[in-house]
């Protein structure tokens, strides 16, 4: 039943599949970014309490959701890599970590720039902010660990174990606003209830979420291809690819 998956364990097949997918992700990303930005910045109504500062939500929330989503998918890849020893999975972990780190940085930075006018402080050590900062350190740790070994099999295993240990932080981030008294407001969309945000504000947010998700997809696939090229650089198919122009 799952036999169709087998050819993709071969690096070249995966490389080519990734190459076919990248343009689709890029197109959807560009369109949704343009629509989401214009809608969110100019057409969505201002918040009745926070005024126009709430528009930071259109990058803050997608980046924060994707920073956790990226980590979760990284953990799935790490698990597959560790259990079934599929080296392409380790490469996927290495490809996702920097993109996830960038999203985490964006979530923290925009959070600070939103917190300053709303809470009066760039940074407070509350549960949500601190656990998200730990997520950034986890990402940086995974990247550093992966780059610390020249033997990439060992590097993949070490980075994979760290990734799996760090998964514990994901539910902590998500529930931090419920478990502890924090300054940070509760969830707006990701809960088992009606979203607590008006539809006119929600639509551009969902479009921006799509933009960030496809950005993650495109960048992850590009970096995944880089990882394959690096690991397979002495293989004939890579040489043929490089010498045959593009």
């Amino acid at each position, binding site marked *: 039943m799952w036999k169709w998956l087998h050819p993709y364990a071969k690096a070249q097949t995966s490389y080519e599949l990734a190459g076919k997918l990248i343009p689709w992700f890029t197109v959807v990303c560009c369109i949704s970014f343009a629509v989401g930005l214009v809608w969110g*910045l*100019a*057409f*969505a*109504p*201002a918040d009745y309490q926070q*005024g*126009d*500062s709430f*528009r*930071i939500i259109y*990058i*803050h929330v997608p*980046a924060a959701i994707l920073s956790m989503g990226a980590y979760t998918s990284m953990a799935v890849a790490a698990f597959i890599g560790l259990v079934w020893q599929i080296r392409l999975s380790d490469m996927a972990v290495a490809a996702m970590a*920097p*993109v996830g780190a*960038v999203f985490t*940085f*964006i979530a923290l*930075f*925009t959070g600070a*720039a*939103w917190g*300053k*006018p709303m809470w009066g402080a760039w940074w407070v050590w509350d549960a949500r902010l601190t656990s998200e900062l730990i997520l950034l350190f986890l990402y940086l740790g995974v990247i550093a660990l992966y780059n610390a070994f020249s033997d990439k099999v060992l590097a993949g295993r070490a980075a994979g174990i760290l990734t799996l240990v760090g998964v514990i932080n994901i539910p902590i981030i998500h529930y931090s606003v419920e478990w502890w008294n924090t300054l940070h407001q509760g969830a707006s969309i990701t809960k088992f209830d009606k979203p607590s945000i008006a539809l006119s504000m929600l639509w551009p947010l969902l479009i921006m979420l799509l933009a960030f998700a496809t*950005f993650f997809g495109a*960048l992850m696939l*590009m*970096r995944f*291809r*880089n990882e394959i*090229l*690096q690991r397979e*650089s*002495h293989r004939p198919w*890579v*040489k043929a690819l*490089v*010498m045959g122009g593009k």
Partner: protein
Amino acid sequence: MEFVSWADFFAMGGYGFYVWLSFGATFISMLGIVIDTRMKRARLFKQVRNNIERNKRMQAARSMENTL
């Protein structure tokens, strides 16, 4: 449309600095990782090409006669 003029739009109801700081930083970070990824790819291509050329030169040198 929530804003009446461009100046109004850039002012963001007085929160302009924070809003544009956020969007600017986001744009720069995302552009940064795109550039990094593309540069890495170009570097890898160059590496592989250099390796192939080097192997060719080595083979040519080896097949030459009367050399040390």
